[in-house]
């Protein structure tokens, strides 16, 4: 989450993720009303907002990250309203120039963000959409039609950072997504350690770890956050290397 625990730590933490083996960095944009998020991400957003971190600041952090890392794909994840407040056209132009590669807008399903999808494509930004265990076939087809980059499969019914995921259930759902789209599939919501990452990695193209990293940062405190984050992620990387897909965070 951009700005948590402190704005000055966001770029070092992003670099630490890459050093520890993340293939893609997903940076949360804080929002006051994160309806799809669990308590961990809510607390994180509240801390970031206390520092006054807004979308323009997040784009500044992306530029700073890009100054020394021009290669690692970077995805912004957040809610629709900060983008609306900045203006969709202005945001997409600035994000493209800053070096943002992809965008996840949690509360903007395909039919509500036609303009954003069009402008993102024009600026070389992928639109990444969520699919869930409850997604209907029609919805999967609709998302497959407009999505780019990768598909983000939400592994459980619930909010981010929820309990244990049903790995067999995830495995059972993915063929439907593969039939509808050639895009790689990342699986997230509820992956907490090297073991669950490895098991999901057996059939997904990427695993997404979010809340768990925020918990690690939260527990470590600002001084030790970078070191603890690397220590947490290294075994996850090793577990996935035994399978050789990707991990992103």
């Amino acid at each position: 989450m951009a700005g948590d625990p402190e704005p000055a730590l966001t770029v070092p933490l992003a670099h630490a993720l890459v050093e520890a083996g993340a293939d893609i960095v997903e940076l949360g944009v804080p929002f006051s009303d994160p309806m799809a998020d669990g308590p961990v991400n809510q607390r994180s957003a509240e801390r970031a907002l206390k520092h006054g971190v807004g979308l323009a600041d997040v784009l500044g952090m992306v530029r700073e990250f890009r100054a020394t890392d021009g290669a690692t794909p970077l995805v912004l994840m957040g809610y629709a309203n900060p983008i609306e407040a900045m203006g969709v056209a202005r945001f997409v132009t600035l994000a493209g120039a800053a070096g943002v590669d992809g965008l996840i807008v949690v509360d903007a399903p395909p039919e509500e963000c036609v303009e954003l999808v069009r402008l993102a494509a024009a600026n070389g930004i992928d639109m990444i959409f969520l699919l869930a265990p409850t997604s209907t076939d029609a919805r999967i087809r609709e998302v497959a039609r407009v999505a780019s980059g990768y598909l983000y499969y939400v592994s459980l019914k619930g909010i981010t950072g929820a309990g244990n995921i049903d790995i067999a259930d995830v495995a059972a759902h993915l063929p439907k997504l593969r039939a509808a789209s050639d895009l790689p599939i990342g699986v997230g919501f509820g992956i907490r350690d090297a073991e669950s990452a490895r098991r999901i990695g057996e059939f997904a193209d990427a695993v997404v770890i979010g809340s768990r990293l925020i918990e690690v940062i939260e527990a470590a405190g600002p001084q030790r956050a970078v070191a603890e984050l690397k220590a947490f992620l290294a075994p996850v990387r090793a577990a996935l290397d035994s399978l050789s897909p990707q991990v992103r965070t």
Partner: protein
Amino acid sequence: MKMVDLPDAHGHFGPYGGVFVSETLSQAIDELNAAYQRYRIDPDFIAEFRYELKHYVGRPSPVYHAKRWSKLIGGAQIYLKREDLNHTGAHKINNAVGQALLARRMGKRRVIAETGAGMHGVAAATVAARYDMQCVVYMGSEDIQRQSANVYRMKLLGATVVPVESGSKTLKDALNEAMRDWVTHVDDTFYILGTVAGPHPYPMMVRDFQSVIGEECLTQMPELAGRQPDAVIACVGGGSNAMGIFYPYIALDGVRLIGVEAAGEGIATGRHAASLCAGKPGVLHGNRTYLLQDTNGQILETHSVSAGLDYPGVGPEHAWLKDTGRAEYVSITDDEAIQAFHDLCRYEGIIPALESAHAVAYAVKLARELDADRILLVNLSGRGDKDMHTVARRSGLAL
């Protein structure tokens, strides 16, 4: 498309409304929408809803001509639609009954609700008891402190009240938490949303269930006053009581529709809850509408003496009624509402909810500018029993 035919199939009122939810909720929304589209025209469903409104809620609620006060004011005649006389003391029960009946037909045995002042929570707990359903109500911990009597009422009715500690710990955060519960228990749970906000079909569905208020007035006003009113006035937080009385009047061109928002300590102080008067469009809680937000698009905390108006958004149909000019939106401060509260108590023997007192206060202002043959119809959306502590405290008394 005519205004009364809105929303469109995707829940849009012009540029407002829609379905801005995460994918994890979209199937639940689709299921709800399909069920509502089916039952809103089902004669058995409509008949049961009407039966419950008559025999359980106590409808129709009367329209009352406040003759004494109108004379004292010396202007237009003020008529009050007495939603305060409903079972549970406010208009909220109309919608709660409708959604509970729908939940039963969908086979959902667990209902959840958000509440601010507690009136919608009490209504949801009431219908859950009536129809034998498990009920969980989310309420901001700040509001729990302010409205302890309603918390106890909900518990008496068998509901579990869950304090919400996130964000500003008020209504908007309770709504976030109810949505999170719904995502997590999507199979067996029905979310009884209390106002004309949220993702489609809620703004339409809540309006439809509440429009019984305005439909009754269409018949009652000619009987009592000899004609339809010159203006219909209602308070607006999320906007359900206002949509309920406005909607049947939208097609009557000669009738002004006036929504009254909470100006709190004054619009200029920034401590208010007037999203239509002082906000700008954005996306929150599943729909596009006017919001109180900062330049970064973060939602602002709101302030009003009435917890029921303490909401940073507003129903999307109100946003469209404002932009098209069909309805006017004004604001009333805490002090003005409190004055109207006391006046209605003393001059008519009616203790209004502080929310409703905002509408009454504006009606008095307008009445003074008009001739005695003009007619103003005010939606008295709830009674003030829940506000005794708040009013006493402002008068320097402790109960």
